[in-house]
């Protein structure tokens, strides 16, 4: 069979990941390869010209090699058809798809190319050997994804370590009020799962812990976990609140996104699992003064379960599989000055509003504007939410795509903002029937089951949806003024509102980068974990026995996250069931893959 190899780059991912020159050289020596051409980046291919070329050099199979060769396939297919060849003989050697974007890129690219020339799908040839798998599993991250994955595996009667960075599991979902599109409260879905995890005999819940180091190989990873000093005895604490009552320190509460303050010894939120207090060493007077000052909480604790001198300790565990579910952070709205976040008190981020409108939030779910008051301790004015004094907004503007779909910030779409913004609009119209609600959007991305219907309903409820991006928010005689273009009506809109909600996009956590480096995992340009195969293996990675689930792989809504988290469990349980799991694809050598591919063609 006479084969023509064409190198075409679509310009996706890191251009220096592979050495095209050496690849071209390699291709030339592959059996059957007659023509090797490097057409460079985004070549404009004229099928007619190409067809003649194919005819003249009697090529029967074409292999397009590049970061995303599919972009050029139709042209080649047509050319081959014009030349009277079999159009199914156009094969793709997709470097990006099969992980030639990182590490030993060039060798991987060569192996992908080799498979393509032989007409063997790469994943069929690049199958690592199996190794014995340790039955225990480590789940990193205690959000809904981590919880779901842990439960799936735990319920199967397998041992799971669930490691969570903060003092409680629950993650972002625990902060939400309602969930779209059914509007049932997030707590009602999540808290039972949290309780189940807390009580599960197969799940070893390790909150306030971090993964320090991972060594070993697929099937048996040795993991060093840092138990950060909680300074409260988990088993003894009865969550009586006496310690927090006397603690003099006040810092912004992470759980409430800083719209209220917590003490240095605190319970993240009343329904926390484990339902145990934690001392925040960074703000605790005693810890900061090396035991010279304060320490009153320890004295006050009726069960004497506070040990302020406790230090971090490292525990080592061995596991067969590791599931990464470290989730996301929201985009820092400060980076977009024109929306005045931080400078204007009543410009809120989505998560702040989630807490504000949440029944268990600081205002008991009452939507009010911030009120100015003098802080005696800080000796300064500050803006706070006050359920009684704060007046409820007459008009609220919701700004979509804050930091998303923007070349100057995040180029990608954060997938959930449209829907949660619509949800906000509903909550506003429900709680403040005579308040006006304006949504500034670019595309209303309501794509899931029941989403479109939800969007229609919100419009029917009287929310003004404005197709157009908000340009700026500024203050004029004490009110926020929002400016944008209403594109469908073709008019510039600029009017005052009482509150502006920024639908901030999602970004990978700082931890993602650290873990990726530690485990040698690839991340995409935006910092999300790269899956092994976009379509066929959305939860596996190049490393055997290491999986990604939920947001850390890319923005997702709750149903998709839950489905993915369960999906991860399938891979894990499978390997435990047969006691063997796949090795890392990353470790496969070029010759291994060549050999297997060749054997497949013979068979």
């Amino acid at each position: 069979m006479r084969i023509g190899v064409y190198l075409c780059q679509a310009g996706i991912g890191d251009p220096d990941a592979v050495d095209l020159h050496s690849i071209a050289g390699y291709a030339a020596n592959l059996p059957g390869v007659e023509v090797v051409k490097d057409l460079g980046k985004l070549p404009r291919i004229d099928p007619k010209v190409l067809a003649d070329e194919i005819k003249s050099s009697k090529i029967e199979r074409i292999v397009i090699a590049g970061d995303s060769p599919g972009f050029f396939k139709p042209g080649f297919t047509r050319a081959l058809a014009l030349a009277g060849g079999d159009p199914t003989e156009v094969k793709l050697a997709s470097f990006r798809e099969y992980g030639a974007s990182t590490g030993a890129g060039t060798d991987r690219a060569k192996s992908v190319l080799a498979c393509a020339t032989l007409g063997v799908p790469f994943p069929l040839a690049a199958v690592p050997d199996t190794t014995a798998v340790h039955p225990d599993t480590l789940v990193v991250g205690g959000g809904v994804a981590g919880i779901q994955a842990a439960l799936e595996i735990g319920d199967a009667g397998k041992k799971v370590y669930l490691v969570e960075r903060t003092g409680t599991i629950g993650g972002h979902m625990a902060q939400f009020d309602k969930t779209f599109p059914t509007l049932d409260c997030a707590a009602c879905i999540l808290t039972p799962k949290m309780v189940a995890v807390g009580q599960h005999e197969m799940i070893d819940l390790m909150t306030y812990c971090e993964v320090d180091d991972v060594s070993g190989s697929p099937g048996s990873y040795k993991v060093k976990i840092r138990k950060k000093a909680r300074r409260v005895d988990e088993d003894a604490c009865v969550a009586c609140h006496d310690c927090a009552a006397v603690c003099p320190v006040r810092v912004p509460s992470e759980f409430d996104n800083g719209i209220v303050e917590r003490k240095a010894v605190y319970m993240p939120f009343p329904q926390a699992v484990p339902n145990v207090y934690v001392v925040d060493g960074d703000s605790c007077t005693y810890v900061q003064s090396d035991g010279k000052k304060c320490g009153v909480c320890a004295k006050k604790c009726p069960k004497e379960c506070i040990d302020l001198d406790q230090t971090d300790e490292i525990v080592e565990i061995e596991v067969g599989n590791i599931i990464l579910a470290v989730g996301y952070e929201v985009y820092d709205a400060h980076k977009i000055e024109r929306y005045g976040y931080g400078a204007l008190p009543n410009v809120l981020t989505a998560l702040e509003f989630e807490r504000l409108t949440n029944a268990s939030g600081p205002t008991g779910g009452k939507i009010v504007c911030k009120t100015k008051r003098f802080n005696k301790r800080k000796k300064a004015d500050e803006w706070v939410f006050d359920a009684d004094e704060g007046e409820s907004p007459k008009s609220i503007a919701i700004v979509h795509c804050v930091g998303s779909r923007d070349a100057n910030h995040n180029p990608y779409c954060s997938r959930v903002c449209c829907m949660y913004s619509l949800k906000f609009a509903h909550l506003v119209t429900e709680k403040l029937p005579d308040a006006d609600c304006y949504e500034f959007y670019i595309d209303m991305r309501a794509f899931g089951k029941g989403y479109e219907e939800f969007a229609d309903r919100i419009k029917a409820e009287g929310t003004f949806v404005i197709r157009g991006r908000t340009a700026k928010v500024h203050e004029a005689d004490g009110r926020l003024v929002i400016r944008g273009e209403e594109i469908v009506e073709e008019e510039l809109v600029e009017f005052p509102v009482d509150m502006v909600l920024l639908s901030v996009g999602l970004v990978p956590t700082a931890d993602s980068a650290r873990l990726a480096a530690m485990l040698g995992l690839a991340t995409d340009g935006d910092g999300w974990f790269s899956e092994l195969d976009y379509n066929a293996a959305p939860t596996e990675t190049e490393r055997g026995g290491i999986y990604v689930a939920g947001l850390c792989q890319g923005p997702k809504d709750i149903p998709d996250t839950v489905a993915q988290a369960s999906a991860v469990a399938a891979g894990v349980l499978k390997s435990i069931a047969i006691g063997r799991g796949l090795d890392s694809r990353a470790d496969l050598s070029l010759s291994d893959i060549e050999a297997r591919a060749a054997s497949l063609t013979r068979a």
Partner: protein
Amino acid sequence: MAIRANPKLIYELEKYGADDVSKCYHCGNCSATCPLTSSDSIFPRRDMRNLQMGLESNLESSVDPWLCYYCGQCSDECPRDAEPGETMMSLRRWLTSRYDWTGISRLIYRSWKAELSAIVFLAIITGIFFLAMGFWKGDIHDYDGANAFLQSGESWYGIPVFWRMSGWGIHLFDWLLAAVLVFFLGTNCIRMWWFSMGRDRDLHFSLWAYVKNIWLLPFHFFTQKRYATCERKTPWAIHLWLMLSYVTMLILIMVFLELMWSGPGVDWRVHAFGLTAAGGLLITSLYVLRGRVVKTETHYKYSHESDWMFLILLLVVTCTGILQFFLHRFGSDVAANIAYVVHLMAVVPMLGLEVPFSKWSHLAYRPLGMYFHHVREDTVAAEQPVREPLGAAQAA
């Protein structure tokens, strides 16, 4: 009746510099960011839309491009890097070529080769003409602004020369040239009126509307007040300075030429103006040139070939102008004369091409654009009911 979209136009506009317009996904950020835009002329987005869809008639009739001064804010904040500011710039070029009935503008905008050769051609013609004159009759050693290179005898082949008493020959040349330019520019302006107002069948523009807004023409021409409403002020200042220097110089040459050449004594009443203007031209054109080279600001990021040629011509004209003046002052007449020829060689193509067919036509189109815009605004306000703007409830 539906308008026919033309997917090809966007490719055509690439030649005028609009490379990124296709990236726009119409979030409206640009229009909302722009301090100059208003609900009854929303730009740049609407024009970008018309351009993407190739609605030529809409584009032709739009004066929006002349209302934009390209401060660059829209481009800076565009989430898709669609460069709205540059698109408006390209549209100005395209409109210029549309207003021009001779097709010259279209030619020189679409190919820099054509433009360059046109310039060179005109320069050479001018050069030859004056040199010939000079060698034939005049005296290269004698610098006399009045009759430099021009016949100064009693009669020329028996024809009595009416300008023999004084040396108005060069003046006559100026005026002839001016007349030609005014003719071309004028006719183009009329076409501009036709596209943007004349052929509009939906609205009826009353004479009164035209009359009561006429003051806008000189006002905007001399103050460029609108430019000052951009958030960034420096570009306005520079532009105004350049424009005023240029106009001053133009007036001096057109009206007070004889006062400029009468030597050996210097009439400082005019020279004071002359030198300031020359200085102004020199500084500003150097500033802009540097800007374009180093890409100091957003509106200098992209430079069409025509921008470069214009700047270079302007610089050459300015320098040679100054040069011939000083050479003359220091008595080296030969050098002064040569400098003067070079000067004219640059002046003719600069004025001849730039004013009616290229960049400098905007000195007429901008004020006109604003004028037409206000006329339209008034008429719309009179004829169409005002729609309650969204969010009016809040403002109340």
